[in-house]
């Protein structure tokens, strides 16, 4: 038993923290918060050079081939920013989906480019009838004269505006009794005529509507080369990707907790630091309890995945706990900070926005609680 990070992980953590502190000051983060891509070409190049886009991609496909826990350490520090942009969507979820589902040729063609930042992936799964369940995939298509033709809308797609390519879940058959869910993942070049990406306005970041108008996708765009296996590929990838998304949220919770502790020491009211008031302490203690619940469920899920143990229930647990924790930690911080907390320039609302935006990504707490019960065989 050893619940500490390895020396290599400690080094990575320090390097990422240093990078985030240097490159992502508060003003940069605030400026990026509502941009369509959440990143600038300069920042993207620097991150690419550090090799972080290939963190989970095996060395044989041009990546760093690091462990899922290594990736989680990286994303925890990014979450501390919180650093926006397509890093998770492309280099974790997208890459793992290709790795899980792609043919050997597709992996060789695509993954090195993802690791080098020359391809940016976004998984377009959800639609207007929102939900991360296979029956919610209604966009239908079929192969005609060597092409799939897409007409319809994908909604609440994360990081599509930054993507060069979409991994689009489409229905190529009704669900069959044999267990196939009839869903296919198509690799769609985002520059194909008829693809429209519109970043949604409001209190969210880098979430898009993707529309398809007579979009022609070549037959070889089917991930894995076989129709009907797309949902299974996505599920397999999500199982590994979810704890890394959770780690990002753990990092965000950690940063928000530290922000609140610091504020409790410096904000003076009634002639003393507000942290001397037990009501204020209660908020912060609630935050650290949520933070630690998120942290340990997340890292145990990663350990189970890496050590080859059955991990599904732990992954659902981590997502159910962490997505709720992120909401609650930010709520607590707003109670502590009051008016200052809602000043955009203070930076807390960056995290609060992320906690709400990411709450639903890859399934909300309710979905994962239900899937937890299923995974436990109840």
């Amino acid at each position, binding site marked *: 038993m050893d619940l500490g990070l390895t020396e290599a992980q400690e080094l990575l953590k320090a390097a990422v923290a240093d990078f985030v502190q240097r490159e992502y000051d508060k003003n940069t983060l605030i400026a990026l918060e509502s941009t369509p891509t959440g990143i600038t070409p300069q920042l993207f190049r620097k991150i690419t050079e550090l090799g972080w886009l290939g963190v989970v991609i095996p060395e044989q496909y041009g990546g760093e081939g690091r462990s899922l826990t290594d990736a989680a350490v990286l994303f925890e520090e990014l979450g501390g920013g919180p650093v926006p942009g397509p890093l998770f969507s492309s280099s974790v979820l997208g890459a793992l989906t290709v790795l899980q589902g792609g043919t050997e040729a597709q992996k060789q063609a695509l993954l090195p480019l993802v690791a080098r930042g020359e391809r940016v992936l976004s998984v377009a799964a959800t639609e207007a009838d929102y939900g991360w369940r296979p029956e919610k995939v209604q966009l239908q298509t079929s192969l005609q004269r060597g092409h799939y033709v897409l007409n319809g809308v994908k909604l609440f797609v994360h990081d599509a505006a930054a993507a060069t390519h979409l991994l689009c879940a489409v229905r190529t058959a009704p669900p069959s009794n044999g267990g196939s869910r009839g869903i296919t993942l198509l690799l769609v070049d985002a520059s194909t005529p008829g693809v429209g990406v519109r970043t949604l306005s409001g209190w969210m970041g880098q979430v898009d509507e993707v529309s398809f108008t007579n979009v022609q996708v070549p037959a070889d765009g089917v991930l894995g080369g076989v129709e009907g296996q797309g949902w299974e590929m996505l599920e397999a990838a999500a199982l590994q990707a979810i704890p890394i998304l959770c780690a990002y949220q753990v990092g965000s919770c950690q940063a928000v907790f530290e922000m609140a502790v610091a504020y409790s*020491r410096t904000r003076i009211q009634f002639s003393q630091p*507000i*942290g001397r008031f037990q009501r204020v302490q209660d908020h*912060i*203690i609630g935050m*650290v309890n949520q933070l*630690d*619940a998120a942290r340990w469920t997340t890292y145990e899920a990663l*350990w189970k995945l890496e050590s080859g143990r059955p991990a599904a229930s732990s992954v659902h647990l981590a997502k159910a706990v962490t997505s709720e924790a992120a909401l609650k930690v930010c709520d607590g911080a707003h109670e502590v900070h009051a008016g200052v907390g809602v000043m955009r320039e203070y930076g807390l609302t960056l995290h609060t926005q992320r906690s709400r935006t990411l709450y639903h990504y890859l399934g909300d707490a309710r979905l994962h609680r239900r899937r937890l019960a299923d995974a436990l065989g109840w």
Partner: protein
Amino acid sequence: MDFEVTYTPEQEAFRAEVRAWLVENIPDGLEQPVDPAHLSLEQYQKLRELGRRLGAKGWLYPTYPRAYGGSDLSVDFVMIVEEELDRYSLHLPPYYDSGGRLGGASIFVWGTEEQKQYFLPKIFRGEWRTWQLLSEPSAGSDLAGVQTRAIRDGDFYVLNGQKIYIGSLHGCEMMWTIAVTDPERPRHENLGWLMIPYDLPGIEVRPMELLTAGGEGGASPGLKHTVFFDNVRVPAFNLVGGENNGWRVATTHLELEHGGGGMVRRNRVVDEFLEYCTTTKRNGETLSQDPDIRDDMVEVYIKNEILRLFGLRTYWLSHAHKPRSYEGPQLSYWRKTNALEIAEVILRALGPYTMTNDAQWGPLAGLLEHYQRSAIVGLHPGGTTDIQKVIMARRIGIGRTDKEQAGRLR
């Protein structure tokens, strides 16, 4: 990270040794009642016998040095002993001995060599069962405000006062307490920490009638008492940690009481509740297929998983000698509040069945009925939830830059 002990061949051999040893040494006919208040004297004596046998092997308090009755076992080896005992729903120690666990640690940190040689082997080999005497009628959360006095008189301290919520069924051999040794000195500098033989003249022990006794997990006490001291003469040798230094000695056992040692045992109530829901039918339908009950099960499961992970993390920090801060009181806080919340979710899930231990209608032989009581009683031992939060706040440094340190365990 590694959330499980990865056992070496040497450790696997140790496990085989422990397992075989337990088969030979667990007394015949050992049974544990659902309600610890029903532990018979005969069964208690079997548990004590097992404790002495474990003690003779150095496995009762295995992390301590051999010289004092332990066997210098590292965390991974201790986990093996705990896991093997857990197969019998037993713990280390197998009977309620929080006074030995907490007092032993305190003497180990603060005692003179002579005191350690005298007291520790008897505790660690299971010859004594030890009670801790802390709370008083007017000193609970404000423990440093105890009024019991121990005034030096020659080679003795003369003890007068009253302690409450003490002990367990079937008595003990040794007790310890903190008491005022110098009424003139300021708070925290006026206390002494004393080991007290149970059979000294002037000690009176009266049972208390509580909703149930204990409830924080581990072996349950089964019964609590009021203890009166009337001019009890305690040998001065038994003062541990020096004159007026009792509060510092107390920081060690308070750290343990505040969860600092961690926790690695199963939650039997949760395990059995979930099992009950997946195996019990009402109206032809398994309880777990009812969507409401299914949601309740998930809620219980998630709360308990977080508790398990907090316990494991704190256990690792403590046994691997890592720096500790707020983690112990956080575990204690979570354990207490979660127990109450879990009890209420179970009440919601199973309705009035939860409240009866009727032989015909009570589920799980009354286990859930007892839990409804013990979850409430468990809120106060070792510090209330509010006290745990106060300690967390000081150690995190909320509103202050001078962070309080966790109590010494080594």
